[in-house]
């Protein structure tokens, strides 16, 4: 007799009350992704979920999950609203990396790594972008060469989110240089602690050190590290991009918990900003803030609309790019608006009194760049949603070793 969604939710409600820390969902405790302590805490909370039988609700039972429908996860998410959850494990570890392993990896890899992640023992990340370029992902030049029965990987990766806190990375490398770019790639699951990997944290202009770059120097791994087939790594990378779009659209059944991660992911409180700036009577600023609230509301409505349209087939899966660009447009509008509202207090003074708005504005373009630029997303909409002719590409159909690249610096 299977448990109904309601019964499951009731059981979760009782268990959460006994086992998970209570929080105020309006101001969750900050879990900065560049802080080691946040990751230790997340692993600990994940372990509790696993032991309580509430981890990996939509992952199959044979890999440590519960094998239930999305409806159970959604019901669970609703119950967790007032509890501290290991939200930073959702993306990329669960929603992108584990989801892709589920689609493409061998039984052994799935049994080992998905269940370890669900137990809170492993964190997985993506090693995709390279210093030579991010948007042209299939043009990676990190190489993996066959030596005896091992693969030896050399190259450099960058913009890997939270890699310092991770155990394994999905690393895209070139294994055949004599074929066009998409056909000579292989995906490897490499241990971040491998002695051949030197990891450096990138300091963003905000001071955050969430992102990392990795130098791979003779990183040797066995055949068991190959995800999918040799030279079929693009298929695996495409699944990652697919799962990434769904995760960004808040449409992944593999995410657990529904709150935000705190800090700058807390929605901007315009009324508070306007009042604190002493501008409660300023109709022009109130109208601007109202416009930002309108665009924010439409963003959420668009996410639901596009998700339904992709599920029903009225939009192709690449329709997720509409959400990607819209998110960026709305974030831009919001940060421009808070800069206007806070006026001089946004640029001189203390955090908490307005300066935080100016500081957030400085990082405005992050959302238009990270996860693939909005320019590439607009190409995707033009070419794969609207069916317009593809851009000319000098490397199409050309063996990769004959493709012109920038000179090594």
């Amino acid at each position, binding site marked *: 007799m299977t448990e109904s969604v309601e019964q499951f939710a009731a059981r979760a409600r009782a268990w959460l009350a006994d086992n998970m820390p209570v929080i105020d969902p309006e101001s969750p405790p900050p879990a900065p992704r560049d802080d080691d302590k946040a990751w230790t805490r997340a692993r600990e909370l994940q372990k509790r979920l696993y032991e309580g039988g509430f981890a990996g609700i939509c992952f199959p039972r044979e890999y440590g999950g519960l094998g239930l429908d999305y409806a159970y996860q959604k019901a669970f998410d609703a119950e967790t609203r007032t509890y501290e959850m290991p939200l930073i494990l959702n993306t990329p570890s669960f929603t992108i990396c584990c989801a892709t392993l589920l689609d493409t990896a061998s039984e052994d890899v799935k049994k080992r790594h998905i269940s370890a992640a669900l137990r809170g023992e492993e964190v997985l990340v993506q090693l995709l972008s390279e210093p030579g370029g991010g948007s042209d992902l299939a043009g990676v030049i990190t190489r993996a060469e066959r030596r005896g029965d091992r693969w030896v990987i050399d190259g450099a990766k960058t913009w890997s989110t939270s890699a310092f806190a991770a155990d394994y990375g999905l690393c895209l490398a070139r294994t055949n240089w004599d074929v066009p770019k998409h056909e000579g790639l292989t995906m490897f699951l490499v241990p971040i602690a491998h002695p051949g990997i030197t990891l450096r944290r990138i300091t963003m202009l905000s001071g955050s050190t969430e992102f990392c770059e990795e130098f791979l120097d003779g990183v040797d791994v066995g055949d068991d590290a190959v995800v999918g087939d040799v030279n079929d790594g693009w298929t695996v990378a495409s699944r990652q991009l697919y799962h990434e779009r769904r995760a960004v659209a808040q449409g992944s059944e593999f995410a657990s918990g529904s709150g935000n991660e705190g800090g700058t992911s807390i929605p901007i409180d315009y009324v508070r900003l306007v009042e604190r700036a002493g501008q409660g009577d300023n109709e022009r600023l109130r109208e601007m803030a109202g416009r930002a609230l309108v665009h924010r509301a439409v963003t959420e409505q668009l996410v639901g609309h596009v998700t339904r349209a992709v599920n029903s087939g009225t939009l192709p899966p690449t329709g997720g790019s*509409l959400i990607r660009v819209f998110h960026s447009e709305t974030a831009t509008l919001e940060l421009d608006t808070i800069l206007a509202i806070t006026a001089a207090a946004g640029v001189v003074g203390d955090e908490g009194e307005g300066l935080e708005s100016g500081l957030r504005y400085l990082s405005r373009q992050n959302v238009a760049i990270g996860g693939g630029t909005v320019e590439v997303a607009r190409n995707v909409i033009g070419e794969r949603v609207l069916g317009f002719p593809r851009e000319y590409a000098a490397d199409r159909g050309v063996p990769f070793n004959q493709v012109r690249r920038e000179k090594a610096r």
Partner: protein
Amino acid sequence: MTAVDSPEKILFTSTTQAFLQKESPLRRVRELHAAGESFDPSWWRRAADLGWTGLLVPEDLGGGSVSGDGLGDLASVAEQLGTTVAPGPLYPVSVVLAALAGCADPHPHTAMIDALIAGETVASWAVCEPGRGWEPTDPSVTATAIDAGYRIDGTKDRVEAGAQSGVLLVVARCGSEVRQFLVPTDAAGVRIEPQRSVDLVKQFARVEFDGVIVAPSAAVGSAAETAALIDRQARIAQILQCCEVVGILQTVFDFTVQWALDRHSFGRPLASYQALKHRFADMKMWLEACRATTAAAVAELAVDSPTAGVAVSVAKSYVGEMAGAIVQDCVQMHGGIGVTWEHDLHLYLRRVTLYRSIFGTPEDHNLFVYEAEKAGRSAI
């Protein structure tokens, strides 16, 4: 806009579609304009026969809808009207019917409800006033209680189909209260003066009330319920506009995409230029966002959710802001032909420009959304 529609709903939709294609092509809109007409009354009676007018009226008052979701059905009619920027008084009639059928005691108005549903009479909402913005509950037109009923004095303007209406629902100040009254346009003291508008066939009028006497039964709803009635009428008027605009945007965007694929310059289709591709990508995104926010507001208003007012303002603001941007961009994508009388683009541009500024501008609605956010915060 739901994922699965019932066979009855599909039949209703396809009948409406066939009727509009046959009876209201763009050519017809141009003919009406050339003749200086707004719509043909016999055409309107045939439209009423299709069931358009009864959708907001309960069955016991002679209305009803095949799906049980009258507002949803009306929304889909409005979206289809956008395909050919069709003429006709559907929205003014619907808004007046919403008041007559929605007030606590509709029985004094059953004969009028019947005539409006049958398309025999046309009615419109006289809510705006000269030199004033969107302030539906702050009229300067007065209604004075007298022995015979009420005496109405003052001036309304921007009354859609005012010159074609047999009766107007007039918002008036009555002592310290705001009330609404049904006023026949042939009553003594009513003077109707047509106003120009940017649209080809949507006609508006200024209406002067000079000591117009109406019976006590002309009052619609009690004083206590008037604010809620006016709010609902406004929300219906606003969301139907948004629905029609979505139909307009889809039509204009689709033929502009086709144009970009067909039209060649420098030996390649316009659609192959990245600079243009990105503009089309933005337009597609805005169009889907207009569709999303409109559908969300229709769904909330249909069930009278507590946040329906905010949802409609969000949609009205966003659609009002973006519709002009999208259609003007489509004009730009067409080049010179896009700014001619001959090309149909301006028929659509006229309608979205009209709607941007009627029943509240995006700026008005942004302020409303801010104030609602503020009120919601203090409620916590």
